[in-house]
């Protein structure tokens, strides 16, 4: 059986761990800096006062003037979520995290250990802890388990038997299906509000009207495919941190600190010669908040220069001076997967690499971002007449 453990508003709950008093007050997760001013998850007290997740900040403050905005704390969220996953893994479940606050796992391997599905799921709830208000949905298919967890109450285990899956899904709202907001509006315009109403339509007609994403939603509305859950690769604990005596904002100092942390990380014996596939750079901000950015490398590498070039630019996104910088190895690559060149690449090989590099710059910055300098009158006495900068889109 496939189970889904859900902790709604996980980011807010994790950010409130340091300030538990706010959990009973009207509070909401502040909008992301630089993004649209839309609220994140809200507490039950805020919901009672009429504030809803995704509401505009101005509207929310007008509705509930005593609303407390909780600063985002991505490093704490990541740490707490990893803690939840590890506790589940310690209880014997091979977990597949869907997103923050939602994880899927199979009970097949531990049913005999805990003597049944329900005792196994009770063990999972106990492993996570009641402070998080987790709830579990279980079914033969992944989507049904997710849907069951979405409608379960805190601390509840909702098991849907295979023969009841269709009847269970039918009355549920369409918002449980992974569709863009405009698609929901389109479906509502067609008079569809429940999953069962979509499931009853002919699949070809849905695909013709709504495209591939509609077809996928239609398939999920009928229960989705039967697929086994593949547990994540065991997480690694490789991180290096540097605390500063005073708050630091100078980019040069930060880059030097990053270089030193990377050197320390590369020297860790636990790495056993494996290159890094995914790294994260995190910081504790001077005002108490935190900041985190993860980078997945195109090719797993253990070259200091390449790691520096991949993580260095992220430091420019720091929103405030920091008091601690941390580099975490999120995922390691396979050992010795890269064939080194016997002789320095030159000629055609170098040209291929250059073309690939330029293609990537164009892909991220747009056409016209790569230019070449063309000499038009190098003999001219007027400096600006000697050369032109010409976009190079070939």
């Amino acid at each position, binding site marked *: 059986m496939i189970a889904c453990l859900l902790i709604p508003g996980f980011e807010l709950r994790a950010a409130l761990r340091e300030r538990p008093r706010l959990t009973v007050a009207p509070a909401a997760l502040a909008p992301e800096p630089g993004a649209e001013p839309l609220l994140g998850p809200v507490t039950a007290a805020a919901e009672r006062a009429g504030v809803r997740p995704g509401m505009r900040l101005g509207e929310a403050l007008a509705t509930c003037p005593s609303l407390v905005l909780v600063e985002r704390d991505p490093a704490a969220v990541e740490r707490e979520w990893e803690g939840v996953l590890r506790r589940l893994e310690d209880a014997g479940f091979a977990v597949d995290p869907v997103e923050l606050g939602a994880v899927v796992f199979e009970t097949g391997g531990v049913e005999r250990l805990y003597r049944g599905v329900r005792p196994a799921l009770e063990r999972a709830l106990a492993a996570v802890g009641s402070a998080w208000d987790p709830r579990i949905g279980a079914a033969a298919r992944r989507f049904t388990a997710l849907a069951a967890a979405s409608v379960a109450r805190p601390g509840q285990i909702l098991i849907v038997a295979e023969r009841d899956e269709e009847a269970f899904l039918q009355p549920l709202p369409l918002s449980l299906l992974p569709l863009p907001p405009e698609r929901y509006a389109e479906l509502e315009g067609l008079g569809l509000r429940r999953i069962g109403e979509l499931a009853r339509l002919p699949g070809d007609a849905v695909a013709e009207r709504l495209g591939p994403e509609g077809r996928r939603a239609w398939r999920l509305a009928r229960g989705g495919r039967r697929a086994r859950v593949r547990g994540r690769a065991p997480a690694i604990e490789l991180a290096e941190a540097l605390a500063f005596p005073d708050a630091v904002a100078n980019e040069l100092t930060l880059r030097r600190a990053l270089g030193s942390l990377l050197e320390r990380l590369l020297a860790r014996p636990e790495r056993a010669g494996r290159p890094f596939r995914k790294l994260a750079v995190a910081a504790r901000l001077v005002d108490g908040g935190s900041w985190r950015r993860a980078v997945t490398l195109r090719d797993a590498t253990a070259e200091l220069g390449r790691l520096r070039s991949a993580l260095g630019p992220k430091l420019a996104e720091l929103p405030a001076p920091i008091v601690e910088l941390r580099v975490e190895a999120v995922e390691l690559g396979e050992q010795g997967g890269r064939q080194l060149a016997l002789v320095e690449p030159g000629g055609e090989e170098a040209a291929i690499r250059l073309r690939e590099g330029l293609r990537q710059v164009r892909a991220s910055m747009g056409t*016209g971002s790569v230019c070449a300098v*063309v000499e038009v009158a190098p003999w*001219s*006495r*007027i400096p*600006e007449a000697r050369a032109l*900068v010409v*976009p190079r889109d*070939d």
Partner: protein
Amino acid sequence: MVSHPGSARARRAAGRLNAPRPALVEAGIDGTPRVVNRQLVSVVREEWRVVDRWWTEEPVDRRYFEVVLESGQNLCVYRDRERRCWFTQSA
């Protein structure tokens, strides 16, 4: 390096390299710069004139100065004698 530098698209989007930028200059009585972009000039290292394209409708008549500012920065400024204003440029 560029396959079709003369194409219509390239011509449309092409920009000048080392285009002059307007500068705020206070000059002495002899016309040499004393203050450039609110920084005192320590030394005038070199001076030269460029007179060109006098046969066209856009003649060039510039008096260049290579200066060292109080901060230690090296800079080239010129007085455009046609437009009667100052610019900085890498010569």
